C-alpha cells in the first residue's frame, strides 16, 4: 500500500485552492475593475518567481443548518517571490472568498506573512483588499471561541517589529477596512488605486449606525481623502501602476536593516553642472520657484521618486540616487505656505527621517525653511509638538546627512534639517536667523515703527537696511558652514560626498535604537 490516495487528495485540494471564489467570484471581481490576488501577485513579481506557502490551507465550511458542505480555501494567499531578482514575501486577501474578511486559516496566513519577512530578512509586500473581523466569527462554529490564550504574543507585535527590520509596502486595490486598514498605515510605503480602492476604519453601514451620517465608501475613504489625510503615500490610476510603484520604492532599499542600500551603476555624469541653478532662486525673496525642478537637476536623471506629494505639501520627501547611491531627499516647497512646517508636514518629515535612519539611507536635505506654520489653525493643531518630533528624529539620526541651505532657514523648525555631523553647504541665496526679516522687524523695532510719522515707510526702511547688511560670506568665514558654493557645483560636490560616506555605510547595518512607528 502506497500513499497514492492521500497524494491524489492533496492534488485535488491544491487545485481547489487555486479556484479561489470560483468562476463567479472571479468574474465579479473583474467586473468591479479589480484584479484577483493571484493576478496581483503575478503582476508584481518577476515572471514565474512565485513560490506559494500553505497552498492547501483551508477551512471546513458549514451551511446555515451546520451541515458540512466542503472546504473553502484560506482567503489569504502568501509566498515568496522575486522583484528585479531580489527576494520578497508577498501576501494578500482573496476578495473572491467571503469578501476578504478573514477566515481562521486566512488570518493565520496573514499574520505569518509578517513573521516570514522578519525571519528571512526580506521585504514584505501586502496587496490588501478586505474587511476586518466579522461578528459571525472566523468560521469557528463549534467549540473553541473565547479568544487566544492570555500568554500568546499580541497579534500586532510582529507588525510593529517588521517596521524596524524589513521594508514593508502596502497596496490597496479595493475596499480595505478594519485590521487591514491598520496594516495599510503600518507601512514604509503605501499606494492605493484612484478609482477602485477605499480605506476605511469602519464602512458606510457602521458609520450610519453610529453617527447617522450616510456616506459612500468613496466619500468616506477614497483616494481624494487619504492622499490628503496622509494615510497613503501615493495614488495610481490602476493596479498595475500601483504595483509598479511598489517595485520602484523597493529598488532604493536594502532587503533588511542588516544589509546595505543597493548602489547601482549610474550613467549620469557625477560632474554634470546645470547652468539654470545659478538663477533658479529669485533675488526677490517673496517670489517662489520650482524646487522639484531643482531637485531633479541635481539628482541622477529620472531617479527622484516622490512620496506623499499631496499631504503636508510644504515639505517634499522622496527617494532618489546620486552617483547610483540611493538617498533620501527632502526639500521645502516655498509655493505652499512658503515651505513652512505645518503639523502635517512635520509628521511626514518625522516618518521619512525615521525610515531613512532605519534602513541607513543617507539623506540630502535642501533647506528653505521659514519656520513652523503660524496662526490660529496651526496653534489649534498643536503644530509645535509634531514639529519637535521632527526635530528629535533628525537630532537622533545616525545616517550620513548633507544639508544644503538654499533659500531661508528661520526659527526652531530649521533645527529639524540637521542631523549630528551633517555636511553643511550653503548657496549665496540663503537668509537665516531667528525670525524672517519681515515679521522679525515688526517685533524687534515695534516702538521705533509705531512712533514714526509714516510707520509703513519706517518698517520698510529698517527691513531694507538689515537686508543690505546680510551677506552670505561671514558664514563661510566663521566656518558655520563647510562650504559656501556655486549652486551649479551642488551635484559634483554631493556626488563626491557620496564616495566619502561609503565606508561609513559599510558599518551602518543592523537595527537602530529608534525605528519607525506608523
Amino acid at each position, binding site marked *: 500500500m502506497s500513499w497514492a490516495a492521500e497524494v491524489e487528495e492533496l492534488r485535488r485540494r491544491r487545485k481547489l485552492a487555486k479556484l479561489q471564489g470560483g468562476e463567479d467570484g472571479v468574474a465579479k471581481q473583474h467586473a468591479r475593475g479589480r484584479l484577483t490576488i493571484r493576478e496581483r501577485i503575478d503582476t508584481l513579481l518577476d515572471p514565474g518567481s512565485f513560490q506559494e506557502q500553505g497552498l492547501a490551507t483551508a477551512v471546513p465550511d458549514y451551511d446555515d443548518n451546520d451541515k458540512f458542505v466542503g472546504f473553502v480555501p484560506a482567503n489569504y494567499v502568501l509566498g515568496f517571490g522575486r522583484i528585479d531578482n531580489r527576494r520578497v514575501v508577498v501576501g494578500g486577501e482573496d476578495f473572491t472568498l467571503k469578501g476578504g474578511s478573514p477566515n481562521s486559516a486566512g488570518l493565520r496566513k496573514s499574520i505569518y506573512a509578517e513573521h516570514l519577512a522578519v525571519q528571512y530578512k526580506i521585504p514584505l509586500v501586502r496587496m490588501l483588499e478586505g474587511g476586518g473581523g466579522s461578528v459571525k466569527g472566523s468560521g469557528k462554529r463549534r467549540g473553541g471561541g473565547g479568544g487566544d490564550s492570555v500568554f500568546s504574543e499580541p497579534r500586532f507585535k510582529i507588525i510593529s517589529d517588521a517596521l524596524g527590520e524589513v521594508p514593508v509596502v502596502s497596496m490597496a486595490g479595493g475596499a480595505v477596512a478594519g485590521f487591514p486598514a491598520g496594516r495599510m498605515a503600518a507601512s514604509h510605503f503605501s499606494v492605493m488605486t484612484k478609482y477602485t480602492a477605499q480605506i476605511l476604519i469602519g464602512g458606510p453601514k457602521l458609520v450610519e449606525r453610529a453617527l447617522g451620517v450616510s456616506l459612500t465608501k468613496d466619500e468616506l475613504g477614497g483616494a481624494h481623502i487619504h492622499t490628503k489625510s496622509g494615510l497613503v503615500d501615493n495614488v495610481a490610476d490602476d493596479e498595475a501602476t500601483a504595483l509598479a510603484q511598489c517595485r520602484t520604492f523597493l529598488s532604493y532599499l536594502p532587503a533588511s536593516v542588516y544589509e546595505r542600500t543597493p548602489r547601482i551603476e549610474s550613467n549620469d555624469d557625477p560632474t554634470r553642472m546645470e547652468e539654470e541653478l545659478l538663477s533658479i532662486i529669485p533675488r526677490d525673496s517673496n517670489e517662489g520657484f520650482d524646487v522639484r525642478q531643482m531637485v531633479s537637476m541635481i539628482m541622477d536623471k529620472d531617479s527622484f521618486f516622490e512620496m506623499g506629494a499631496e499631504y503636508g505639501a510644504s515639505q517634499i520627501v522622496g527617494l532618489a540616487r546620486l552617483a547610483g547611491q540611493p538617498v533620501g531627499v527632502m526639500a521645502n516647497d516655498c509655493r*505652499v505656505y512658503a515651505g513652512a512646517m505645518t503639523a502635517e508636514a512635520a509628521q511626514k518629515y518625522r516618518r521619512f527621517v525615521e525610515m531613512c535612519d532605519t534602513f541607513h539611507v543617507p539623506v540630502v536635505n535642501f533647506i528653505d525653511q521659514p519656520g513652523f506654520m503660524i496662526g490660529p489653525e496651526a496653534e489649534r493643531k498643536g503644530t509645535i509638538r509634531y514639529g519637535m518630533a521632527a526635530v528629535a528624529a533628525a537630532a537622533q539620526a545616525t545616517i550620513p546627512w548633507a544639508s544644503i541651505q538654499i533659500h531661508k532657514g528661520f526659527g526652531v523648525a530649521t533645527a529639524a534639517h540637521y542631523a549630528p555631523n551633517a555636511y553643511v553647504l550653503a548657496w549665496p541665496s540663503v537668509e537665516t536667523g531667528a525670525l524672517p526679516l519681515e515679521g522679525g522687524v515688526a517685533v524687534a523695532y515695534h516702538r521705533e515703527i509705531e512712533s514714526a510719522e509714516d510707520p509703513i515707510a519706517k518698517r520698510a526702511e529698517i527691513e531694507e537696511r538689515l537686508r543690505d547688511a546680510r551677506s552670505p560670506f561671514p558664514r563661510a568665514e566663521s566656518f558655520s558652514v563647510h562650504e559656501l558654493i556655486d549652486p551649479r557645483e551642488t551635484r559634483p560636490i554631493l556626488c563626491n560626498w557620496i564616495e566619502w560616506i561609503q565606508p561609513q555605510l559599510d558599518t551602518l547595518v543592523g537595527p537602530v535604537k529608534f525605528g519607525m512607528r506608523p
Partner: protein
Amino acid sequence: MASVNVESEVTGKVWKIEASIGDNVDEGDVLMILESMKMEIPVESPVSGTVTELRVRKDDSVDEDQVIVVIEQ
C-alpha cells in the same frame, strides 16, 4: 463642456488677479497670485479652457481647498 474647479492650495490673501472672465487659457497659465506667509504663490490653470467664474477679488482672504476660479474645458 466640463467645468473644472480651481482650488487654493493654501490659506492666504488674493494679491493679484491675472485672468479675466472669458479669457482662453492654456494649462499652466497663471490665473492669479496669492500671498501667504510672505510668499507670492501663483495659481496655475490645471487645464486648457475658458475662464467662466472668478470667485474672489483682490485682497480677499482664501482658505485651503476653497474654489477660487472655474474653467470650462
